[in-house]
């Protein structure tokens, strides 16, 4: 990643400007509307905290577990490609009411996911989307020059590989089922899941190669 290492937190992100920075107008609005909703009995402070905990508990590791299961269990893979939401629910993941569609990468086809309208993302499975997914640049160009976008992520697809770009909607979300890396025949499901990156499930990355 082209990170500038100045002013980064130990987790490799820029320091966040939240609780100890000057109060912004929009933060003021968040506090005010949250308090009004609580006072009017529309929601409770406990519900807000629980919802934050729930989103924090969702991460690409959940999607990686689903992908690894599909790599090792052909019947599960068939169910995943038929109805990804139901297949993920089988594994105990709460997908909500959204339609989740898995699209499979092969030697001949590479899939890429975008939301040109806003930021729709398989968030119930993978957690919140990365910042770049929500940027104007990604949303504009993923459907205009997807191969150039992929190149910025370090992926150069052979011209013989068909590239399919999937535009998400509010109630239809996609996840890429990446191709299982070569040479991984001896790995079990847990070890395979370690190879599955967030970006490989968006289509802007590939699974990690074996060391």
């Amino acid at each position, binding site marked *: *990643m*082209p*990170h*500038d290492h100045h002013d980064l*937190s130990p*987790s490799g*992100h*820029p320091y*966040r*400007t*939240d*609780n*100890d*920075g*000057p*109060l*912004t107008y*929009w*933060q*003021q*609005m*968040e*506090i*005010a*509307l*949250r*308090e*009004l*909703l609580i006072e*009017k009995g*529309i929601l409770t402070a406990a*519900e*807000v905290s629980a*919802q*934050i905990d729930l*989103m*924090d508990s969702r991460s690409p590791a959940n999607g990686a577990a689903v992908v690894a299961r599909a790599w090792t269990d052909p019947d599960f893979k068939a169910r995943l490609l038929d109805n990804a939401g139901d297949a993920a629910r089988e594994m105990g993941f709460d997908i909500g009411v959204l339609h989740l569609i898995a699209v499979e990468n092969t030697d001949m086809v590479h899939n890429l996911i*975008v939301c*040109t*309208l806003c*930021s729709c993302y398989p968030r119930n499975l993978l957690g*919140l989307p*990365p*910042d*770049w997914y*929500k*940027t*104007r*640049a*990604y*949303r*504009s*160009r993923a*459907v*205009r020059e997807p191969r150039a*976008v992929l190149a*910025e*992520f370090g992926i150069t697809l052979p011209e013989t590989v068909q590239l399919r770009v999937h535009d998400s909607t*509010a*109630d239809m979300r996609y996840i890429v089922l990446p191709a299982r890396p070569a040479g991984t025949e001896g790995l079990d499901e847990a070890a395979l899941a370690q190879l599955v990156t967030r970006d490989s499930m968006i289509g802007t990355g590939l699974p990690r190669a074996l060391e």
Partner: protein
Amino acid sequence: MGGDAAGPVPMEGHDFALWEKRVDALMALCSAKGHFTVDGLRRALEDMGEDAFENHSYYERWVAAINQNLIEAGLYTLEELGTRMQVVAARGRTYGDASGA
């Protein structure tokens, strides 16, 4: 936006601040409770025009869009919001102080 020309994809990310996580939670809860939908959120976001995408952060746009929908749904009035925002601002100079109640 989809299909427009644009520059390189900015790769830097950030850890979500508490206030951003709260905005996200408010959206999830209010839509789960049926007060408005994701489409309502997006309609309000698109009404902001292109400048908003340059001048405001993601969750700044979201809180504005949530507020727009909640006021339209009649859950509180603009006056109530304005009054409460003044009370909030008077509590302190930082988010921590102002949300510490």
